């Protein structure tokens, strides 16, 4: 059975190679090849899942060793895969949602002449992401980690002829590289501490290591997670990443890749459990990001950027849960899965809207679209209800559990974290209602563009709506399915461990509080965007609104400090290299040149002056000889 694991990765990898190397011959069938191979991977995943279900809970870890990757004295990295409940969950999410989005892209990218390459990149992404979650050691995980970064780079910048897309792609890669630096130092630290960076040896020897080392490893892993999962302070790339085609935003920047940070933290549970300081920082980062993302999401008029803010915020919830330790790991992953459904669905809905609106993204130019796009409206609406935590839908179950766990952290921390999570829930309800109202309700606000072409909103083709419907079904029933009988908890517990916290407030009270927050959020949004018409041009807004529109000035800070500072630094270094380093050498050369310039004047070409120097020299020699003899 283990032998099949490699097949999970091999299928999409084959697709990527065939589609990217195959050339124009494959233009006509490329998208179906890509979709087929991604689906094949999903089928293998389901097969393995069935196999795991047939085993005892303790024997659900499959290991496949392929080959020794880097054998050096005292250092060994293997290409080994580990399939356990945690990676299985991810495999199904990645290949399942991935295949749906492949299908959607067949329709969405229909008119793009580079569709074949798009599918090649998508398959590459799947392969890398699967490698990330299946790796049995951190170095192999790192390969997947950077691999998804590369795929993300290629896909954000897919429309390379747009300078904004190219810049966004570069920015995403660079910010991620800062995080990757954390991961690579963490691996080095593991190597010096444990002599290995494979999961088994590291987690098995955590007891032997000092807490300082473990905290350092934990913080470095967190840095990596911040980069990949767009957490504060490395969150700035996610908004710009919306330059990529919408299916990419749905798959990579909502459902799968950006959640890799959460995977990393949960996977390293053993390390974090032994490093409470690191855990505290994780919860703080998660909390700050969930508020940050939510606030940014409130101010954006670009539908995709509003959703990106929301993604950031929801991942903040997951990171918060992951930072809570054993009381939160399972819920972090559960929210991750349900979020994968409803956020992918929301993005696909947004893509469908853009598809019908000539790629317009400004929500102020939408309005009243429910009449024109009924399927999109319904699926988007279900995703909306799921994300705000409408009772009975996915988000209700998963998010409530996180808020509960935050309170269960206990003490003042518990109150602060739980309170922040509640506030986040209210803001979520507000911005999502805003998106919903501005897009589908009210009067139509679209105008003819410069060329005079008025958009004719229409429903998208079946190939696009079917994935949306499937995802909507998942968003509606996923949470309930997982929670009834604690199915998800029992499934994941053997890997992540679980402990019940002691919450100072009862579960019922928390549910009431979240409901109240929900009603407040929806109510304010209704008052602002439902009752009165939405202005087509954004009002100036309060100071906070203006700051939130600019991602709370984070980019401005980066620009001033890092970009400008860096430019000055490199420019002055170029100058130094030219004048100082090279100058010293050139100066020496010039010194010798000047000296010889003086000396060459002695060569004046007059035979008689040469004769004088000859005589002078001879006289000197004779004098010296005589002098020596005299002495």
């Amino acid at each position, binding site marked *: 059975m283990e032998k099949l694991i490699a097949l999970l990765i091999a299928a999409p990898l084959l697709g990527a190679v065939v589609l990217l190397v195959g050339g124009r011959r494959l233009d006509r069938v490329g998208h179906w090849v890509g979709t087929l191979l991604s689906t094949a991977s999903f089928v293998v995943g389901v097969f393995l899942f069935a196999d795991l279900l047939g085993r005892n809970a303790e024997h659900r870890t499959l290991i496949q060793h392929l080959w020794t990757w880097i054998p*050096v004295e005292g250092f060994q990295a293997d290409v080994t895969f580990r399939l356990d409940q945690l990676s299985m969950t991810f495999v199904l999410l990645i290949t399942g949602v991935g295949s749906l989005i492949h299908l959607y892209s067949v329709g969405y990218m229909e008119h793009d002449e580079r569709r074949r390459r798009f599918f090649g990149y998508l398959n590459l992404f799947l392969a890398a992401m699967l490698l990330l979650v299946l790796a049995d050691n951190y170095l192999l995980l790192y390969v997947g980690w950077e691999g998804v970064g590369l795929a993300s780079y290629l896909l954000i910048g897919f429309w*390379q002829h747009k300078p904004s897309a190219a810049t966004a792609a570069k920015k995403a890669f660079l910010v991620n590289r800062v995080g990757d*630096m954390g991961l690579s130092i963490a691996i080095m630290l593991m190597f010096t501490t444990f002599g290995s960076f494979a999961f088994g040896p590291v987690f098995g020897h955590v007891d032997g290591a000092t807490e300082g080392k473990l905290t350092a490893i934990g913080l470095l892993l967190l840095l990596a997670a911040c980069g990949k999962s767009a957490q504060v302070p490395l969150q700035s790339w996610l908004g710009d990443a919306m330059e990529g085609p919408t299916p990419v935003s749905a798959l990579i920047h909502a459902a799968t890749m950006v959640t890799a940070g959460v995977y990393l933290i949960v996977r390293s549970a053993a390390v974090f459990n032994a490093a409470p300081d690191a855990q505290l920082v994780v919860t703080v980062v998660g909390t700050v990001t969930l508020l940050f993302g939510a606030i940014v999401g409130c101010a954006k008029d670009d539908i995709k950027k509003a959703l990106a803010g929301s993604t950031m915020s929801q991942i903040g919830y997951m990171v918060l849960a992951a930072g809570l330790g054993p009381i939160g790991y399972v819920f972090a992953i559960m929210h991750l899965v349900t979020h994968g459904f409803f956020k992918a669905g929301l993005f696909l809905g947004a893509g469908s809207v853009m598809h019908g609106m000539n790629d317009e993204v400004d929500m102020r130019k939408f309005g009243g679209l429910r009449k024109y796009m009924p399927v999109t409206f319904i699926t988007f609406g279900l995703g909306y209800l799921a994300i705000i935590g409408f009772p009975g839908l996915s988000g209700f179950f998963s998010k409530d559990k996180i808020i509960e766990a935050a309170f269960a952290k206990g003490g003042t921390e518990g109150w602060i974290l739980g309170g922040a999570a509640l506030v986040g829930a209210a803001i979520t309800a507000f911005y999502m209602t805003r998106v919903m109202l501005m897009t589908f309700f009210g009067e139509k606000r679209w105008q003819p563009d410069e060329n005079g072409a008025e958009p004719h909103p229409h429903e998208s083709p079946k190939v696009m709506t079917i994935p949306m419907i499937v995802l909507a079904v998942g968003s509606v029933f996923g949470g309930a399915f997982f929670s009834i009988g604690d199915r998800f908890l029992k499934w994941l517990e053997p890997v992540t461990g679980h402990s019940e916290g002691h919450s100072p407030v009862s579960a019922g009270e928390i549910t009431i509080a979240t409901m109240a927050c929900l009603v407040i959020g929806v109510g304010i949004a209704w008052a602002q965007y439902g009752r009165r018409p939405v202005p087509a041009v954004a009002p100036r807004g309060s100071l906070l609104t203006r700051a939130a529109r600019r991602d709370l000035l984070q980019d401005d800070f980066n620009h001033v400090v890092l970009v400008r500072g860096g430019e000055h630094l490199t420019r002055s270094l170029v100058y130094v290299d030219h004048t100082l380093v090279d100058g010293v050498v050139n100066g020496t050369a010039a010194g010798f040149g000047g000296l010889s310039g003086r000396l060459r004047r002695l060569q004046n070409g007059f035979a008689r002056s040469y004769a004088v120097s000859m005589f002078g020299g001879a006289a000197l020699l004779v004098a010296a000889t005589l002098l020596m003899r005299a002495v």
Partner: protein
Amino acid sequence: MSFPLLTATAALPALGAVATAAVPAARRSAAKWLALLVSLGTLALAIVVLVRFDPGGARYQLTESHSWIRDFGVRYELGVDGIGVALIALTAVLIPFIILAGWHDADPLETGSRRWRPTQGFFALILAVEAMVLISFEATDVFVFYIFFEAMLIPMYFLIGGFGDRAHAQGEEAAATQRSYAAVKFLLYNLVGGLIMLAAVIGLYVVAGNFSLQQIAEARANGSLHMATGTERWLFLGFFFAFAVKAPLWPLHTWLPNAMQESTAPVAVLITAVVDKVGTFAMLRFCLGLFPEASRWATPVILVLALISIVYGALLAVGQRDIKRLVAYASISHFGFIVMGIFAMTSQGQSGATLYMVNHGISTAALMLVAGFLISRRGSRLIADYGGVQKVAPVLAGTFLIGGLATLSLPGLAPFVSEFLVLVGTFTRYPVIGIIATFGIVLAALYTLVLYQRTMTGPVRPEVSKMPDLRVREVLVVAPLIVLLIFLGVYPKPVTNIVNPAVKHTMSDVQKKDPKPEVEAAK
């Protein structure tokens, strides 16, 4: 007596160089084909060396030893260890690609130009360089090594000074001036280094009485040769200076950007990917092998210089406006990694450094040769003159991106393996230096992606709109390199198997042991 395989490996390109130079002026293409065939023959011989070499066997294998200058104890001694074999293979693999990539670089210019470009000379010089580089990797006699280490400068000087890019913004006169400046700078820097080394070589003879690497090492090991600490340090510095110029290490690096900028792309590859490797290789073989105590003594300073090279080279690469200069500074950064790995004195660091030499050779070749194809199409080296190439020449852009990704050490490609090994090897002994060096990976991403973004993406500039995509010959050059990069990235075992035993010997030379992991040590 067995067949002198190592001599043959170096002699074949040397004879090939003579034969190529002797091809009549009119038979230009015959000279090209001859050179290509000779380089392929050398590759075949190198493969035989690779096969005959037994990683588990003696330290130096396939040895040859003949008396040469009896009065000075100079012997013609050749032998290879794993590190040498790896680099011989790299050289032999790269030269055919360099020749193929430079197929038209030495063609006569269009009528009306007065400059004469001897096609035969170009290819003969490349083969001559190959011969000398190969014998430098093989020599186990310091004197023999020194001769070829220095003699390499002559063909390189003519390659840099005699053959430049076809088109130049400031016209032919200015180009010729800058080219000769670069060539002279290259020559002077390396000559100064070489002369200082010569003094040290003579000093070594005075102390040891012969030039044989093995004999001296043996005599030092069994105590029959004692070197005073001061003497050893001075001799070490003399050797190291020459290698640091060649490598090049900050602050002796400024010749490299000039030389790479002015020469044609294949020659630039020859400089960084092949010739400069002799410098880092010699650090491992001669500095550590002959002067272990002094090497340990100098380690802190050298590590700091290497660290400066890494960060400084990367920062300067970010600030460049010329594609080739950018690659040159990137290489300086990478050479910093190699030197750091060598002097970290851990198994991982040294294996990583050796692997790095091989991988850097391949990745720079891929990036630089594609850059050369790009430059030859537009006739400009300036980054600002490009934009949107991806749209008109997707294959060129794709291969350029892969070369760039290899340069930034993307996992899955070969350079990642070596860079990570070097970093880990350094980190285990010098954590702070290891961490600062890791910043290099962010900077590498910055300069590579900025280069790619400015040249390949964005709206198509009118000047590049008619740019043809890669031709068959060019694909033949790039595709195998990319395959190698990927293969060695996922399966570097063939190389590490050869290198590991040699590294073990070097580690015992310098009497250093790897630090033990904390948890294991606590048990």
